[in-house]
């Protein structure tokens, strides 16, 4: 089986994992959550194996490059990074409620990569400008950052769904969600990780651009949108310093931030520039 076949099957497994996490919330049954968590670990392992396999396939084709350089591969890596971060968070917080909010990102990314007719899963050789180790660090850091922002998006949604009332009715679907202070804290931690990674992503991107095109910053739309995202999250980080800007306002800013991430990722392809994967 080729790596892209494995990955397209994984889409369905991830969807199943999402359904299980959702059932756990709706039915209030922690047992289902446990099954979901185990399945997630299994699919993550398979996902990792498929990435390595794809790498090896590229060597077998005589191209030999890391599987990180077109839209297909970046989506697959994004899904992988979201899973990785989510597994770490689930393990650290011992709470599975975010699964229902985060898994949609994973299977949507996988489904888009595997089933969109406009995305080719073929391993293509690299044009000269993309042959750079900076490219690999650039993609890895950016997408780890995007994954962290994806989790922050999930936590922000949870924050907005969760009621303030501490005496929630039993059987309320949202009882599994941690309390608001904890959500706020988790959200902030994700923003911080995402911001750090995005910063490193922008840095490695500019070093790469400098070696390939001679200028570390040229206001191309993708660059500009990553800067916009960066500015929004910088605003999020600083709004914690201003009294009264906790919780809801930050959650909403994080939603805006994630919308910027998505635009940086997909929307920019509709504006012309250096980064458009299309050519």
């Amino acid at each position: 089986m080729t790596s892209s076949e494995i990955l397209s099957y994984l889409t369905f497994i991830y969807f199943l994992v999402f359904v299980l996490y959702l059932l756990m919330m709706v039915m209030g049954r922690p047992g289902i959550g446990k099954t979901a968590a185990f399945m997630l670990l299994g699919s993550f392992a398979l996902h990792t194996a498929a990435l390595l396999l794809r790498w090896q396939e590229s060597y077998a084709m005589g191209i030999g490059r890391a599987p990180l350089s077109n839209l297909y591969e970046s989506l697959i890596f994004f899904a992988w990074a979201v899973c990785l971060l989510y597994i770490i968070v689930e393990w650290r917080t011992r709470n599975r409620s975010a699964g229902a909010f985060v898994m949609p990102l994973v299977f949507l990314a996988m489904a888009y990569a595997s089933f969109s007719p406009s995305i080719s899963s073929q391993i293509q050789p690299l044009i000269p400008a993309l042959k750079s180790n900076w490219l690999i660090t650039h993609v890895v850091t950016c997408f780890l950052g995007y994954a962290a922002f994806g989790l922050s998006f999930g936590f922000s949604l949870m924050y907005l769904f969760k009621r303030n009332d501490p005496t929630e009715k039993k059987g309320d679907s949202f009882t599994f969600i941690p309390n608001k202070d904890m959500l706020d804290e988790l959200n902030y931690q994700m923003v911080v990780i995402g911001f750090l990674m995005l910063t490193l992503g922008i840095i490695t991107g500019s070093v790469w651009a400098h070696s390939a095109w001679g200028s570390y910053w040229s206001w191309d739309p993708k660059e500009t949108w990553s800067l916009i995202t960066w500015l929004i999250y910088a605003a999020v980080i600083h709004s914690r310093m201003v009294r009264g800007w906790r919780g809801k306002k930050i959650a909403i800013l994080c939603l805006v931030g994630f919308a910027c991430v998505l635009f940086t990722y997909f929307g920019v392809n509709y504006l012309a520039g250096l980064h458009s994967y299309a050519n």
Partner: protein
Amino acid sequence: MEKTVKGEKPNPLWGFLSSVRLTIVLLILLALLSVAGTLIPQKEGAIEFIQGLNPNIIKILEFIGLFDLYHAGWFRLLIGMLAINLVICSIDRFPSAWKRFAASPSVDRIHQFEDLPDNLMFSVNASVRQSCERISTLLNRRYRRVRFKENNDRFFFLADKGRFSHFGVYILHLSILVILLGSLVGSFFGFEGFVRIPEGEKVDSIMLRNGTASISPGFEIRCDDFTVEFYENGAPREFRSTLTFLIEGKELEKKDILVNHPVVFGGITFYQSTYERVAGKLIRLKITTSEGGKIDESLTLEIGQKIDLPGKEGTFEVLEVRHMGSVPAALISVETGKSDPTRFWIFEGFETIRSRLPEQMLRSPRFDPKAFKPYIFVLEEVQMRYATGLQANRDPGVPLVWSGFFLITAGFILTFFSSHRHIRVLVEKGKNKVHVKITGSASRNRFALERELQRLVQDIKSLFPA
């Protein structure tokens, strides 16, 4: 957290310029403007966009910099404000960070040990002196500074580490300034240019990107060779130019340059950017006569090389070769010494392209291969060669920007992954055992502190085997 030192009257301007509220507003404004810049066509893209608009409106829009937003005055003004905000805010807050860095809180604060959770208190089987010695060794091994104090038969330890983390945020913010400074230096003292060098030739000037001016770098660049390789699917795999740098004709350095592997000479960085195919120096042509009788062998000559005509009526040379509508063409000049030289263009594959040429061109003697009777000049082949296109930039701001990148990373690590932790240990004599209590405080990440305290409890306990 807009607080002012007690007793001082806050200066409203200072308060405004040092406030984090202003930071947030500026960050969001800059973000919004950048969005506008990606939606409104900029620079060259704007030309098409503004066609059909009222010229006065265009003038106004140009005046407010709508078509070059990122270089517009007020975009820069906002960035300048952010920089000022950053400087003032840092000055405002630095003293308190310094205080926290340099503080040496008193060691025997008994109230810090009140209301401790059970897992931070335990007893050991040892004398007080033994306990203090062992604990002291452990703490000294693990912490940067350990202080000790005895008070009323109670023995206090205060250890701390990570006090430099207070400066993380300042390094982070400083790095932003360094990057901004670097970009400023680049825009004042740098340039972006371009050179195009056919294989085997050299240039001594660089065309600037914006505008028609060119500068001479004080040396010559020769392109010795250019190669391009393709993948099977036709996509380019690699471009490579071999360059030689010369000063006053002396070869100083020979370098290969590839995409992603620029070369620096004389403070100017050369990047492989594009390439094209251009006419080379060698031309193969054939001379026949209109009667079709005596046909010469085809001959190969260089541009500028004078050759006798077959009947020794004079000489001819090729002055220039060039592509006309993608067809190679050569400019022939025939001199007989009697009158002005006869000049005309001949084309490769003239018979086949004839139908594509405009009527006037066919009638003009400048394009007539029979212009010098009785000969017919036939251009057989123009040797092709590559011309390499190199981006040639100077940006003295780059080292600053790079150090800013380094600082920002260091600042992040200091800010987010380290914290100033104080650990307090109290040793006191109980009835027949020695009681140990542990507590601590951290400038950030309380959870990590909690884990550290737990580990310390375990490690101290293990110093006293039962």
